[in-house]
C-alpha cells in the first residue's frame, strides 16, 4: 500500500476533528428526535410511558379531535373574509410606503397578499381544533414578540454603537447582559410580583387615584414576558451588525439625495440584515418554545405549545400524543424558519 496521499491525510484529520461533535449531536439530538417520532406511534400507558404497540391514535387525535372540529364552511368563509380584510388593510400603508420609497407597488401588493394569506391560515388553524389553535397562538405571539423586540432593540443597538468611547459601549452591552446573570426563573417571578394585583404597579396606579387593574395572568403579561426574556438576543446581534456596517455607504446615500427613510430602508437595513436575521430567529425560536412565561405570567390560562406538551407528558399520561405534538411542533418551526429565512439568509446563520 502506498503511503496516504496528503488529500487522504487531510480527510482523515477532518473526520477526526468532526467525530466528537457528530457523536454529540447524534446522541443528544438525532437519537432523541427519532425516538420522539417512534413514541408518537405507540400506545399510551397509564402512569406515563408507552406500551410498545403500534397505533396511529395520537396522530388521529390531532387531526380529528378537538372541540372546535365542528368548524365547517362557516369557518372557511370567515377565514376568507379575514384574509381579504387583512390584505386590504395592509395594502394601503404598504403601497404608500412603496411610493414614498420609490419602490414598485407590485412588491407591496405581494407582501399585502402574503399578510392576508397568513391571517386566513391563522384563523383556520385557530378554529380547526385545540391543538392547531395553540400552535397558531404560539406562532403569532412569537412573531409579535420578534417584531416588538426589533422595535425596541434597534434604537438601543444604534445608540450603543454610536457611543464614542469603547468603555461606554462595553458598559452598556454589559448592562444588556446583566439580567442573564440571574436565573430566568427568578426574573420571571420578579415580573410576576410587579404585575400582581397587590404589587408595586397596582400600588402606583392606586396612589394616582385610579382603579386597580388586572395585569397578571393576561395576554399582555405573557407578551411582556416573551419580549423581556428575548430582548438581549436581539440587541446583541443587531449591535454586532451595526458595528460592522459601513457607515460611509449611508453618508453617500444622503449626499446623493436619498431621504432619511430611504437611507434606512435601502441602505441601513440591507447592511444589518445578517444581524436582523440572527436576532429574529433567536427571538422567535426562544419565544415559540417558552414554558415558564405562559405558566407564571399567564396563570395557566394562556398556554403555548410547551404547556400542551407538559400536560401530555405529565398529568395526562399520554406520551404518544405529546410526542406527536412535539414532532409537529419541530416540523412547524423548521419549515417556517426555512421558508422565512432559510432559503435566502440561511448562510447568515452560520
Amino acid at each position, binding site marked *: 500500500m502506498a503511503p496516504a496521499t496528503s488529500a487522504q491525510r487531510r480527510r482523515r484529520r477532518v473526520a477526526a476533528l468532526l467525530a466528537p461533535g457528530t457523536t454529540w449531536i447524534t446522541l443528544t439530538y438525532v437519537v432523541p428526535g427519532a425516538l420522539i417520532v417512534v413514541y408518537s406511534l405507540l400506545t399510551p400507558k*397509564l*402512569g*406515563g410511558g408507552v406500551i410498545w404497540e403500534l397505533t396511529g391514535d395520537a396522530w388521529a387525535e390531532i387531526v380529528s379531535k378537538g372541540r372546535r372540529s365542528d368548524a365547517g364552511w362557516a369557518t372557511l368563509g370567515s377565514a376568507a373574509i379575514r384574509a381579504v380584510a387583512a390584505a386590504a388593510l395592509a395594502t394601503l400603508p404598504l403601497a404608500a410606503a412603496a411610493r414614498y420609497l420609490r419602490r414598485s407597488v407590485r412588491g407591496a401588493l405581494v407582501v399585502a397578499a402574503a399578510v392576508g394569506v397568513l391571517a386566513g391560515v391563522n384563523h383556520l388553524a*385557530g378554529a380547526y381544533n385545540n391543538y392547531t389553535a395553540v400552535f397558531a397562538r404560539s406562532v403569532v405571539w412569537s412573531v409579535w414578540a420578534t417584531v416588538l423586540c426589533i422595535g425596541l432593540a434597534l434604537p438601543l443597538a444604534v445608540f450603543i454603537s454610536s457611543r464614542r468611547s469603547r468603555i461606554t459601549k462595553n458598559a452598556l452591552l454589559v448592562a444588556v447582559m446583566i439580567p442573564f446573570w440571574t436565573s430566568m426563573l427568578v426574573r420571571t417571578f420578579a415580573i410576576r410580583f410587579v404585575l400582581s394585583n397587590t404589587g408595586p404597579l397596582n400600588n402606583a396606579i392606586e396612589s394616582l387615584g385610579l382603579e386597580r387593574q*388586572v395585569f397578571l395572568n393576561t395576554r399582555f403579561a405573557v407578551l411582556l414576558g416573551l419580549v423581556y426574556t428575548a430582548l438581549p438576543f436581539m440587541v446583541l446581534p443587531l449591535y454586532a451588525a451595526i458595528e460592522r456596517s459601513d457607515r460611509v455607504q449611508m453618508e453617500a446615500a444622503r449626499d446623493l439625495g436619498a431621504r432619511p427613510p430611504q437611507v434606512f430602508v435601502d441602505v441601513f437595513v440591507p447592511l444589518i440584515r445578517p444581524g436582523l436575521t*440572527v436576532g429574529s430567529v433567536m427571538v422567535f425560536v426562544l419565544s415559540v418554545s417558552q414554558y415558564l412565561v405562559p405558566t407564571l405570567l399567564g396563570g395557566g390560562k394562556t398556554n403555548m405549545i410547551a404547556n400542551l406538551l407538559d400536560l401530555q407528558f405529565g398529568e*395526562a399520561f399520554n406520551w404518544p400524543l405529546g410526542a406527536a405534538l412535539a414532532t409537529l411542533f419541530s416540523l412547524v418551526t423548521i419549515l417556517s424558519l426555512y421558508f422565512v429565512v432559510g432559503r435566502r439568509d440561511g448562510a447568515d446563520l452560520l
Partner: protein
Amino acid sequence: MYMFTKRSALLRLLAVLAVGAVLAAGCGEDDEEAAPPTTAAAPEVTAAPAEPEPEAPEPEQPAPADEPATGRCGDPSRLGDSINFLNWADYIDEAILEMFEAECGVSVTLDTHVANEEAIAKVDAGNSGYSLVIVTDYAIGIMADQGLLAELDLSEVPNAANLDPNQMDAYYDPGNVYSLPYQYSTTGYAFDTTAFDTPPTSWSAIYDQNPLCGQSSLLEDQREVIGSALAYLGYDWNETDPAAHEAALDLILEARDCVSGFDSANYIGNLASGEVLAAMSWGFAAGIAYLDNPNIRYIIPDEGGIIWQDGMVVPADAPDPYTAHVFMNYMLEPDIGALITEFTIGYTPNLTVPPLLSDGYFDVVEGSGLVLTDEIRERLTWQVRDESHAIFAETWSEVLSAG
C-alpha cells in the same frame, strides 16, 4: 465583497456561539430550578411548623428509655446503614430524619417530588434507588397495577395497628397490600372572610356569578377542576360520560374569565397576602395560609369535595425493603406521627397521634374550618383513576387550549 461576507460570517458565528453559551447557561439554570415554580409554596410551608419545632425533642427523649431499641429500630442485624426516601416536597419535618439516624443509626437521604407523575416516572424507570416512596392514592393504584410496588410485610410494621380503620382498605389498595397511609386531607374552597358579606357554601362562588372576578384561582389539576364542575352540575366527581364532560367544559370555559389562574404552586402565598381572595384549595394548604392570614376559612362546598390520602410504598426494586419497613414503622410512632402532622397540617391516619398534637395545631384546624366532621365526610369523594378516566385529560386539554 466576498472577503467581507466571509469575515462577517466568522464574526457572526462567534456572536452566535457567545450568545448560545449564555443561552445554554440560562437553560441549565432553568433545568435545575424547574421544580421551584411548582414548589414555590415552599417558604410558607417551612414557615408553618415554627411552633411545634421546639417541642420536638421532648417526646423523643423518654422513648428510648421506655422501650428497647429494637422496638423502634427493628432488628439491628438486618438494618441497613442508609436508605433513599422519595417524598413530596415540604411534606416531612426533616428533624425526623435526624432523629431516626440518631436513634437507629440509619441515615435517610430525602429526595422530593412535586407531582405523582414525576414519582411514578422515577420508579418506573427502574433502579431508582428508593426504598420508600410517598405518593397519592390513585398513583398507588397505578403503580401497583404496573407491578412497580413490593407487597408490604405488615409483621415488620407493628405500628400499623395504630392506623384508623376509616383510612385503611381504601379503593386504591384493598387490604393494604402495597401501602400504608401517611397523611390525608381534602380538596375544597378557601376564601378570605373579609371579601364576603355572607360566607359562600357552594361551588357557585366559582361557577355561577363569581363575586371575586380576577381574584380567585383554581388548582392546576385536571381531576379536581373538572371534578368540581361535574359536581356542581350534579354529576359524580369521577363521571366519564362525554355529555357530562361537555357540560363541565362549557361551565369551566365560562368561569375561566373570572378565574385569575390555574395555580397549584403559588396560591397559598397568594391567599395569605391577599393577592387572591378565594381559591380552590387543598385542606392543609388553607391551614398554612391561615397561619399568615387568620381571615382565611376553608369549606367543603355543598356539592362536595375530594378526599385524598398519601401513602407509603416500597418499590418492587427497592434496595433495602427491610430498612424501609422499619422507617415506615418509625413514622407511625405516636410522637413521630405528631411531628409529621404538625408540619403538614394534614389529617393523621394514626389514632395514637391526636392526643399528642399541640394546641397550636388545633387552633389552626379549628380556626380555619378544617375540622373534619362526619357530616363533611359524607360530602367527600375519592378520586378514582384508571384507563376509563382518560377523558379528563382530553377535557383538560381543551380547557388549557382555549385562548
